[in-house]
């Protein structure tokens, strides 16, 4: 069974649809930290679902110049509707076809349920994984781990100056 990738690994590049007519590649974002939030599905029934929560925290992520990308196996049309409904201000990427292709590269595809696991990655500005975390699929992992990882990246930069 594939395992979540560890810190120190080069983050595999990928290109996925962010909207019905736009794609986004991870390599386009080199030069700034990137947060990848893999999650099972849009339209979770709770108002404070993981993507909605991160939407509220976006200004904090931006303080670290980090870009947040949500990834699930939903199509770009489903993402568009969910993002509109939830007023999301960050891209949701469609790991739709081949299904879970990127999630599999990152060791976070749930074979039995056919969805992405709930997993987080913080990738540094050089494209190296700085932190990763696999949450139980039914548990929202929150953002404290992400913020700590971003803070550690920032501190490491200051030390090396």
């Amino acid at each position: 069974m594939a395992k979540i990738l560890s810190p120190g690994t080069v983050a595999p590049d990928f290109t996925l649809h962010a909207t019905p007519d736009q794609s986004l590649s991870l390599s386009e974002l080199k030069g700034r930290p990137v947060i990848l939030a893999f999650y099972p599905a849009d339209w979770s029934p709770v108002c404070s679902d993981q993507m909605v929560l991160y939407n509220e925290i976006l200004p904090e992520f931006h303080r670290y110049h980090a870009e947040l990308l949500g990834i699930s196996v939903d199509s770009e049309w489903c993402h568009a509707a969910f993002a509109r409904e939830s007023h999301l201000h960050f891209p949701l990427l469609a790991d739709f076809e081949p299904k879970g292709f990127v999630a599999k590269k990152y060791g976070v595809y749930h074979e039995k349920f056919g969805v992405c696991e709930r997993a987080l990655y913080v990738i540094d500005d050089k494209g190296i994984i700085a932190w990763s975390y696999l949450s139980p699929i039914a548990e929202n992992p929150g953002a404290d781990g992400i913020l700590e990882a971003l803070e550690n990246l920032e501190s490491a930069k200051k030390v090396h100056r």
Partner: protein
Amino acid sequence: MPKLKVPVSSEDHIQGDKNALITFVEYGDYECPFCKKAYPIAKKIEEIFHTHVRFVFRNFPLLEIHRHAEMAAEAAEFADTYKCFWEMHYLIFENQNKLSQPLLLELGTTLNLPSEELDIVIQKKTFASKIRNDFLGGVKSGVNGTPTFFINDERFNGSPYELENTIREAVEKLEFRRF
């Protein structure tokens, strides 16, 4: 297990004995229906265990999807300046399905709060910084949804319906230690 990163202080809204040995913190959003379901549970816990448990409420509004959450939090913070935070807190949840600025002014009048001042507070978002600090403290503590509860600094991961029994067990352990 995520732990509360912001200690409870005199800046917080506290019910029950301020020196109680058990601290029970809720991060909530006034427009969240799950918080509405949880508020009578928290209220009952405080009524039963108020000598052993201090209950603290902190703001965690989801501003993008709940357009009245911020103004409700502002109204509650304003009520606090007139020492009726908890009255406003419960009134807001009881009237959650009708939340609006006129409703909040009505609730303020019920509590004899100056409605012109309350109106200005809501419009100017006077307490925005305090509300945002509550929110960020919650994020750093591992708040992952609303409501999120902490019992003695540890995040409670069970259902709100299990809270009363969990607190009861904590109180009984405390009592047992006295013997």
